[in-house]
């Protein structure tokens, strides 16, 4: 019999800036069972959306679910309402939504990669990654007016247009950013110590990914070809050079590489979208009240974001349901920990890029 110890990981932990708690039972540092608690900061946003706010305001409320992917939340909500009310969104607005949504993915992925580097003890890489992420934050501020809570999409279109000057600046700075991201990808792909630290650690096999319905970069890193950008028509990804990034290892190394390659593809898509930006309106007026139900799948940086809305010709909706990617990935994380060495837990958890702000919305 080995040395049995109970280790609480979180809700406050140096490796994990999120209020989630895992309680690990270990035997000689190997995990034998795990309990999870995600409810420290439940904010009742779904309840607020169906009691306090009009359907036209909910987009701004759900943007506050998460600071990192607020664009995806608003985008999913407005798309669901537009489908319910049969609103035809102008093409220019769809392109602008795509640009902002992909820039959001770039900064979110860079943040996740930086955190993984930090947990592996590679602080220099962490700082460089965050430094380059700053460029994207500045570009998003230029486009939307805000660094974090963007409130860009609205029912019927978007709130701000892009001027030719801003488009020019975006293109110039994206060119610089692409070079920096290529360097980051190169380090994550070829650095020998990172390979030793991450290859074969925290492996989600393709079978596990299917069994546990894993979403987002962890699923694609395991070889599962799933991406809402390919499986749901919400933005014109096919027109701007979207490519699905799939790898087979399913480990921390591959999860980071999926993000690294997706960052490059996102930059490419933004450049293409800016080059072929259609002329015309950015918003159409929306009349009437939502009646019936609608649901959408949107690929947030962390994976599939599912929104369900139901209205009955009232200003306030009957139901707003938000199923976020971290929520979908918690079951596989829990399963993955069994049999793993405790020392591999922080890097594995961070490589999933968990967001408790979204999970306990």
């Amino acid at each position: 019999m080995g040395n049995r110890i109970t280790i609480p990981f979180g809700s406050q932990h140096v490796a994990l800036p999120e209020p989630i708690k895992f309680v690990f039972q270990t035997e000689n540092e190997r995990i034998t069972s795990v309990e999870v608690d995600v409810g420290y900061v439940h904010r009742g946003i779904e309840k607020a959306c169906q009691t306090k706010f009009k359907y036209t305001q909910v987009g701004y409320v759900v943007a506050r679910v998460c600071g990192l992917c607020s664009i995806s939340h608003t985008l999913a909500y407005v798309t669901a309402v537009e489908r319910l009310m049969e609103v035809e969104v102008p093409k220019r607005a769809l392109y602008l939504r795509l640009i902002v949504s992909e820039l959001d993915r770039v900064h979110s992925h860079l943040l996740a990669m930086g955190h993984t580097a930090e947990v592996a003890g590679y602080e220099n890489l962490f700082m460089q990654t965050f430094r380059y992420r700053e460029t994207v934050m500045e570009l998003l501020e230029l486009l939307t007016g805000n660094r974090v809570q963007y409130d860009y999409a609205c029912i019927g279109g978007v709130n701000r247009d892009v001027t030719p000057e801003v488009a020019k600046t975006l293109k110039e700075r994206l060119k610089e950013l692409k070079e920096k991201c290529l360097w980051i990808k190169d380090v994550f792909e070829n650095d020998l110590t990172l390979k030793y630290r991450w290859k074969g650690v925290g492996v989600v096999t393709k079978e596990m990914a299917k069994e546990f319905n894993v979403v987002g970069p962890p699923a694609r890193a395991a070889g599962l070809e799933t991406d809402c950008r390919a499986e749901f028509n919400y933005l014109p990804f096919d027109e701007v050079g979207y490519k699905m990034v799939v790898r087979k290892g399913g480990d921390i190394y591959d999860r980071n590489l999926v993000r690294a390659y997706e960052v490059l593809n996102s930059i490419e898509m933004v450049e293409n979208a800016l080059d072929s930006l259609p002329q015309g309106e950015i918003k159409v007026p929306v009349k009437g009240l939502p009646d019936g139900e609608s649901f959408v799948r949107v690929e947030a940086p962390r994976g599939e974001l599912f929104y369900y809305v139901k209205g009955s010709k009232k200003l306030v909706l009957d139901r707003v349901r938000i199923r976020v990617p971290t929520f979908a990935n918690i079951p596989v994380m829990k399963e993955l920990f069994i049999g793993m060495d405790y020392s591999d837990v922080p890097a594995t958890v961070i490589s999933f890029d968990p967001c408790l702000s979204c999970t306990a919305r």
Partner: protein
Amino acid sequence: MEVEEIKVPLRDVRKTIKEFYEEDKWHFITVNAVDLGGKVELKWFFSPYGEKERFKVVVSEVSYDEEIPTITYLIPSAWISEWELADLFGLNVEGAKTGLFLEPDSPKAPLRRG
């Protein structure tokens, strides 16, 4: 969007899902609840991998005290959606524990009407 809705009584939900669900083909998204006042409408959402805008939705209605059969025997990851139903709607789901999303001093069943 192509949506196939299958309305079944609660006792047939597991059987219905078992008939079509293959983990190679279908992606289980979530189970969603809407309080209709006195009863709750449940919807289990599925989408096939690699196909555009296609959904299969299993629909059933449940009263507040009825036991909801778990589908974790078929889909192991479904437990988290089921535990959420127990927490936020106060529903009686087979094998579900409460307290995953809400703390002991939180309001009980906050997403119920009234």
